[in-house]
């Protein structure tokens, strides 16, 4: 590693000197560098091998039908790279509007595996050299690439909210009236269902069928293709796993998603800035409070607003309670999938109810809190709420944790199922862009709270919990350790909760955000949750992309399941800890 390179600006200058004809700084409101399309792989290799940018966090595409903010009309492919403690380094690659093709980074960074597929699915940008460029959230055969700016939905009403038809002369018109079928349906002209049969491989069986037909001379048994989900009690929602088995051993496993694809990003580009906050709650519905944080963080970066200390502390308190809640429920689900059935889950849900009582008292809703605002929080924590939080953080939750450890940690049945199962080597974890407990269990001490401290996390003493073996058992240990650290942070934060205002400036419903781009990320309970937003200076986001930890973490699922028994799949999945709302968005 080159020791002299420190800040992002230095890196940009360094790269410019190193690749004079391929790299230039991005135009004014944008950060990072603009890389020539044909030199992308070369620059990325240099970044990874020489400059230690080993972690490709997010890959996304922004559609510019017209020039905007100094960006010409193009498809702008945006990459966010991080080092151990530095970053982000933003790479912009401009793809042609007529035939958008960009070289794929999957051979260098497997973390782009799903993200490039998503970009192809929703934006229609081809990634040359991608091993498996199929649609991921929608299905093969879907008509069009919906995130393009010129693609309109069936219920399309206006480009931006608020819609003019609501006031001052707003009579309710059902959205169904916008479609001739009275439903959210549209078919290409001249298309008729009468002679139509689903020709393309909609459900993705073809690669598995092909693999199953191949014969293995060492193994006499036939290979079987098995479909798990989307309605399966152990897939934590509507995930579908397509597995090819040889006997009971897994030859190939592929997560299929999109069964909860709710068009979050398309709707988010239509909402006003403020209106997106309640939508973020619906992403990872287990931990709604911490979903709002990276979004407000990204917008606050653009606005240049710093929340007052009390608001920052309240945010930390809420984020840590959410982490505790998520890990408790996650371990409960692990027990459920192991066959302990509901016991561990019931105990976890009881603690969840207490934490949700606190959330409801503070924000007004159990699940969908809608509590954060740009520059602060919506309501102050009352004395009653603080008392409840103290009761939980100092007495109730530590007691629960002790009990959990006494019946889970040394439980022979759990250990028999978990130790040595689903081992994820650290190099693979980094390459696949895994974050959160999944990464730390493999022994990589990477935590956004330390690597890029946000809010008041610098004020607290806490340790980053790291595992050694990277198996299911270590992931469990890391989660338990993180719950302990969460309680430590909570106790410090509640003891030192400062007085003062909870909002910087006034609340405003119609907010205009200065033009530019911003990437806000936090250490969500499941990993790094990032929001990439582009503003054109208006009251709505121009681009609103979510880098969901569950989605990227799932990319490694196929690798770590290889060679395991089919019964281990559910527990490996539980140990990765996904929420489908976040995977599919």
């Amino acid at each position, binding site marked *: 590693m080159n020791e002299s390179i420190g800040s992002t600006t230095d890196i940009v200058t360094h790269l410019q000197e190193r690749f004079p004809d391929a790299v230039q700084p991005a135009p004014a409101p944008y950060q990072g560098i603009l890389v020539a399309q044909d030199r992308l792989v070369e620059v990325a290799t240099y970044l990874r091998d020489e400059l230690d940018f080993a972690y490709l966090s997010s890959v996304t595409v922004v559609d510019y039908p017209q020039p905007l903010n100094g960006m010409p009309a193009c498809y702008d492919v945006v990459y966010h790279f991080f080092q151990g403690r530095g970053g982000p380094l933003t790479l912009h690659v401009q793809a042609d509007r007529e035939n958008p093709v960009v070289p794929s980074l999957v051979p260098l960074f497997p973390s782009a595996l799903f993200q490039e597929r998503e970009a192809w699915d929703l934006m229609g940008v081809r990634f040359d050299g991608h091993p498996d460029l199929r649609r991921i959230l929608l299905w093969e055969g879907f008509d069009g690439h919906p995130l393009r700016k010129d693609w309109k*939905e069936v219920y399309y009403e206006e480009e931006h909210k608020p819609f003019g038809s609501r006031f001052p002369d707003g009579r309710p018109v059902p959205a169904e009236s916008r479609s001739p*079928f009275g439903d*959210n349906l549209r*078919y*290409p*002209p001249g298309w*008729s269902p009468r002679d139509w049969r689903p020709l393309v491989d909609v459900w993705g069986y073809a690669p598995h069928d092909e693999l199953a037909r191949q014969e293995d001379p060492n193994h006499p048994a036939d290979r079987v293709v098995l479909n798990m989900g989307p309605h399966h009690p152990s897939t*934590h929602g509507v995930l579908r796993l397509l597995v090819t088995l040889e006997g009971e051993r897994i030859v190939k496993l592929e997560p299929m998603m999109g069964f909860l694809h709710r068009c979050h990003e398309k*709707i988010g580009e239509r909402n006003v800035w403020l209106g997106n906050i309640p939508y973020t709650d619906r992403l990872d519905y287990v931990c709604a409070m911490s979903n709002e944080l990276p979004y407000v963080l990204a917008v606050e970066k653009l606005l240049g607003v710093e929340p007052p200390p009390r608001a920052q502390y309240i945010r930390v308190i809420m984020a840590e309670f959410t982490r505790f809640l998520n890990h408790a429920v996650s371990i409960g689900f692990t027990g459920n999938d192991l066959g302990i059935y509901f016991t561990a889950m019931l105990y976890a*849900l009881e603690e969840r109810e207490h934490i949700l009582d606190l959330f409801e008292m503070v924000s007004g809703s159990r699940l969908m809190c809608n509590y954060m605002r740009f520059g602060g929080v919506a309501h102050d924590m009352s004395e009653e709420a603080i008392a409840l939080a103290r009761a939980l953080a100092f007495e109730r939750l530590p007691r629960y944790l002790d009990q959990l450890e006494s019946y889970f940690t040394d439980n022979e049945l759990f250990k028999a199922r978990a130790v040595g199962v689903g081992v994820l080597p650290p190099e693979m974890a980094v390459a696949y862009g895994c974050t959160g407990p999944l990464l730390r269990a493999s022994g990589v001490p990477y935590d956004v709270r330390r690597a890029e401290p946000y809010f008041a996390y610098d004020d607290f003493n806490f340790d980053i919990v790291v595992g050694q073996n990277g198996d299911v058992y270590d992931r469990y240990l890391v989660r338990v350790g993180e719950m302990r650290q969460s309680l430590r942070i909570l106790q410090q934060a509640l003891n030192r909760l400062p007085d003062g205002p909870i909002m910087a400036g006034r609340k405003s419903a119609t907010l205009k955000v200065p033009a530019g781009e911003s990437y806000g990320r936090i250490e969500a309970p499941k990993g790094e949750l990032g929001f990439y937003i582009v503003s054109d200076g208006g009251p709505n986001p121009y681009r609103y992309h979510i880098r969901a930890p569950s989605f990227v973490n799932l990319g490694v699922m196929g690798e770590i399941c290889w060679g395991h028994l089919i019964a281990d799949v559910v527990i490996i999945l539980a140990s990765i800890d996904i929420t489908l709302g976040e995977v599919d968005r």
Partner: protein
Amino acid sequence: MSPRKRQLPEIPPELVGTVHITPIDAIYNWARKRSLWPIFFGLACCAFEMIGTFAARFDPSRFGMEIMRASPRQADLMIINGTVTKKMLPQVVRLYNQMPEPKYVLVMGACAISGGPFQEGYNVVSGIDKYLPVDVYVPGCPPRPEGLIHGILTIHAKMERESLRNLRWYKKGEVPEPIPVPELGPDLVDWRLTEKIEAMQEEVVPSQVE
């Protein structure tokens, strides 16, 4: 009107002492409503609130429904809990078709009722009632567990009003048609709309020629 209060048919005088009319409807419905088994089926955010409802605090075993069946063949109640997407709809319809009669559908949350906040999305079904017959709608985003339990109690009340004499699934020859399972084509292909789509296309094509 609850069945207990319902007037029993009068016994003719010559048969008094030989025939007893028991409120069989009441017993039958009581047994049915006290063992209403929901299908273990989670779609989106509301599913998590449903799990919360089915845990210790709101304990549905008080109503005899703590057991959630993963197989549709053993379930009586389908709680549609969350956004139904076009990609998921074929599976939802198939599960509904596989459930034995009598079956009930409770729609929980704004998304499942009408698409809710995600209504305008390109992959969202704007209301499951376009495909399945719905008994009770419970709005909210998500509804509180009390709201869900209230919806379930409403289904209980609905069961109480049913009588063996006029139930559809005990009549001869009345086998309900399964709902045609939609397919994934250029958009969701709803087979019931075939003729309408063709009529629409004929309208569209000449206008394009002009």
